[in-house]
C-alpha cells in the first residue's frame, strides 16, 4: 500500500497557508467611518489612579455637553513607556488626535516632526490665548518660535502642613496660615518649633530611591537663587556650582533624623504626614486627595522662599497635537474645540489638587473658596520647569541621573561638591549627544 505521503503533505501545506491567510485577514483593521454625525476623537493620556478617575469625570462631562464629537480616551501607564509608545505611534502614522504630554518633554519631541503646532488664531477664537494663562506657563509651550503645547494645569511641588500641630507650635499667623520664613535659618527654627509639637518628625520628606523627589526640592531651591540651569546643545552645562552645593548641603541638614527622618522614601513620608505624625510634608499637589481622605487638618502653600526669589518647581500636563499622516480638517477643528472645552471645564481638575492653567477658572470666585487649593494657586505665577533639553522632563532619565549623583550626599553624607561634579559630567555627556528626534541637527 503506498503511503499517502503526498496527500498528507498537501493537506498540511494547505492548512498552514490557510492559517497564515486567516491571520493576515483578521489583522486588517476596519476603517473609521467618516462623515458620521458624531466624530470620535482618540485621546491618549497617562493619568491613572485617582487622577485617572477625575480625568474620566471631566471627559464624561465634555462628552455629555455636546454632540459634535465624542472623546475615546486611552489610558497608558505613566512613565517612559508612554512616551515611547506615543513616539512610535506617531512615527508609524497611527497617532491619536490629541494627547497629553508633560510640558517638559515637548522640546525633545518637537524637532522630530512628531507634533504639529497649534494655530494661535483658532485658539483665540475659542477663548484661549496669552491672556488666559500665567506667563511662565504660556511661555513654556513655545519651542523654536512655535506653539506646541497648551497647558491644562501646573502641578507644583509644595509644602503641606498640619494646621493643628503648627498652631500648637505657635507657627500660624493671624490668617491661620503658616508664618512666612525667608531664610534657611528662619525655616530651620520654624521646623524645630513645629517638631516640638509633633509626635514624629517636624518634616516628612521622602527621597530614597527617588531621583524625581530629590530633583524637585533641589531645583526649586536652586531657582530661588534667581538662577536657572542652562543646557545648550553641544556645549557645557551652565550651573552655579556654589549655589548648587549650598542647596544640597541645606537639604542634608534637613535630614538629620530630628527635623526629618534620615531615610524616608516617598510613600513612607506621605504616610507619616497623613497619619498626623509629622508637622509638614514636602510633596506634589497630587497628594491633596490623600490628605483629604485621611481627614487631616491641613493646609498647603508654596515652598518657603528661602533664597530671595519665589519659585515653585512644577510640570504641566499639556495638550499636544500628534502629527497626522492624513490630517482631517474637520477632526482638527473638533480637537481644538475639545481642548478649549476641557480648559473651560477644568475646575474639576482642581479638585484633584492641580492648579488649572486657565486663568478664568483660577480667578473665579468659586476657586477662591476652594481650600487649600486657593492658598497655593499663586505658585502658578512662579512656576519653574526642568531646564530645557531633549533628555529632561518628567519620565525621562534626567531626574534618575540626578538621584544617582546626589543620593549619597543625602543618605550617607558624601561630599556635595563631588556629587555636583558627577552630575555635571554626566549631563555634559548627554549634551554632547544630538537630539535623537533630530540627529542631523536640521531643526532651529
Amino acid at each position: 500500500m503506498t503511503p499517502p505521503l503526498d496527500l498528507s503533505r498537501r493537506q498540511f501545506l494547505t492548512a498552514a497557508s490557510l492559517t497564515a491567510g486567516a491571520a493576515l485577514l483578521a489583522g486588517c483593521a476596519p476603517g473609521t467611518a467618516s462623515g458620521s454625525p458624531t466624530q470620535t476623537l482618540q485621546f491618549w493620556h497617562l493619568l491613572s489612579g485617582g487622577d485617572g478617575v477625575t480625568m474620566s469625570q471631566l471627559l464624561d462631562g465634555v462628552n455629555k455637553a455636546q454632540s459634535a464629537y465624542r472623546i475615546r480616551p486611552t489610558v497608558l501607564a505613566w512613565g517612559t513607556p508612554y512616551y515611547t509608545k506615543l513616539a512610535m505611534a506617531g512615527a508609524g502614522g497611527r497617532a491619536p488626535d490629541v494627547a497629553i504630554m508633560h510640558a517638559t518633554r515637548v522640546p525633545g519631541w518637537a524637532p522630530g516632526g512628531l507634533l504639529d503646532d497649534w494655530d494661535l488664531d483658532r485658539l483665540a477664537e475659542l477663548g484661549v490665548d496669552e491672556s488666559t494663562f500665567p506667563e511662565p506657563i504660556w511661555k513654556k509651550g513655545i519651542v523654536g518660535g512655535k506653539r506646541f503645547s497648551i497647558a491644562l494645569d501646573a502641578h507644583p511641588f509644595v509644602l503641606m502642613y498640619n494646621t493643628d500641630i503648627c498652631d500648637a507650635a505657635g507657627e500660624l499667623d493671624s490668617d491661620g496660615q503658616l508664618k512666612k520664613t525667608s531664610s534657611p535659618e528662619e525655616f530651620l527654627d520654624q521646623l524645630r518649633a513645629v517638631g516640638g509639637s509633633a509626635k514624629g518628625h517636624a518634616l516628612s520628606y521622602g527621597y530614597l530611591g527617588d531621583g524625581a523627589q530629590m530633583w524637585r526640592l533641589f531645583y526649586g531651591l536652586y531657582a530661588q537663587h534667581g538662577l536657572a540651569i542652562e543646557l545648550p546643545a553641544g556645549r557645557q552645562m551652565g550651573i552655579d556650582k556654589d549655589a548648587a552645593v549650598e542647596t544640597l548641603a541645606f537639604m542634608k541638614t534637613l535630614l538629620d533624623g530630628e527635623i526629618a527622618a534620615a531615610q524616608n522614601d516617598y510613600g513612607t513620608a506621605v504616610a507619616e504626614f497623613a497619619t498626623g505624625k509629622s508637622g509638614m510634608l514636602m510633596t506634589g499637589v497630587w497628594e491633596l486627595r490623600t490628605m483629604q481622605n485621611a481627614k487631616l487638618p491641613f493646609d498647603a502653600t508654596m515652598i518657603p522662599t528661602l533664597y530671595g526669589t519665589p519659585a515653585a518647581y512644577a510640570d504641566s500636563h499639556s495638550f499636544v497635537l500628534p502629527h497626522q499622516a492624513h490630517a482631517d480638517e474637520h477632526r482638527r477643528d473638533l480637537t481644538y474645540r475639545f481642548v478649549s472645552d476641557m480648559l473651560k471645564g477644568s475646575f474639576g481638575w482642581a479638585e484633584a489638587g492641580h492648579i488649572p492653567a486657565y486663568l478664568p477658572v483660577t480667578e473665579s470666585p468659586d476657586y477662591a473658596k476652594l481650600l487649600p487649593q486657593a492658598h497655593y494657586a499663586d505658585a502658578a505665577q512662579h512656576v519653574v520647569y526642568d531646564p530645557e533639553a531633549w533628555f529632561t522632563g518628567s519620565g525621562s532619565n534626567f531626574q534618575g541621573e540626578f538621584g544617582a549623583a546626589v543620593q549619597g550626599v543625602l543618605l550617607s553624607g558624601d561630599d556635595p561638591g563631588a556629587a555636583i561634579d558627577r552630575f555635571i559630567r554626566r549631563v555634559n555627556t548627554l549634551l554632547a549627544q544630538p537630539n535623537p528626534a533630530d540627529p542631523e541637527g536640521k531643526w532651529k
Partner: protein
Amino acid sequence: MSTATLSPTEAVVVPSGRSARSRRPRLPGQKPFAPLRVVAFVILALLAIGWLLPFLWAVATGFKTETDAASGDPSWIGASGPTLDAFGAILSQGNVYLWAWNSLLTSVAITVITVAISALAAYAFSRLDFRGRKWLFVAIIAAIVVPPQVLIIPLFYEMLAFNLVDTYWGLILPQVVAPAMVFILKKFFDAVPIELEDAARVDGASRLRVFWSIILPLSRPILASVAIFVFIGAWNNFLWPFLVINDTTLMTLPVGLQTVISAYGVQYAQVMAQAVLAALPLIVVFLVFQKQIVKGVATSGFGGQ
C-alpha cells in the same frame, strides 16, 4: 518570542521507563523518625516558610487599609482590621475582567500554536534528514540568547506594516517563536526508541501519521510541561503586549493593571492587591496541574546513569 526567563532544558538521557514517583520509598532499615530525617524535615520546613513568606506578606498587605499598609507595622493584620478596600479599588477600576479574558484567550492561543509548531519542527530535526539540517539547528539554538528588548522595536514596525497593531494576532504571532522549546522537544524525541516508528512506517504509515499517532501520545508529559511554561511566559509578558496594544479593551491583564495604579503616590495596599490579583490565575493553574508539571519534567529524563 517566548519570554520565559529560564527555559526548560534538554533531556539528557533515555527515559528509564520507571514512573516518576514523587516520594522515594523508605529504605529498609530506615526509621521514620531517625534524627537525620527530623533535621531534614525541620530545615525543609524553614526553607519552605521562608520561601512562602514574601508572597504571604504581599497578600496580607493587600487586605490592609492604606494607612496601615504604609505605617510600617509588621503585624499580619493592620490596626484598623482587615478590609477589601484595596482589592475593591483595583477591581472596580478599568476593565479587569475583560483584561483577564484577553490574557486567557491570547495565552491559550500562544500556547497551542507554539507547542504545535515546535513539536513539528522538533520532530523534523530529530527524525528527518535534509540539507542544512545541522546549521539550521545551530541557528535556532543561537536564537535562545536574544533578549526580547532588542527585538521588539523592529517587530513593532513589522506589525505596523502588516497592519496588525492593536489586534489579537499582532499580540499572539510574535510570541509563538520559542527556539528553546524546539530544542527540548527534539532532545525528547531523540530519546524515544525508533523501532516504534519503524514498524509503522514499514507498514506504510506516513510521517504525519506516525507523528500524530505514535510520537505525540508518548510525549504527553513533556508536551504538558512545555505547554505550561509557555503559558506562564505568555501570561506574564508585559513589554510586547504593552507596545502593540493601544485599545483599552484589548489589553492583557499585566498591561491593564499597570494603568490602574496611581502614577504619583504609592498606595502600598493597592499595589500589593494588584500583584496578588495578577498572580492569582497562574497560581490556580499551577495548583491544578502541578502533578503533571512535575511528572512531565521528571519523565523527560534528566540525570541518572
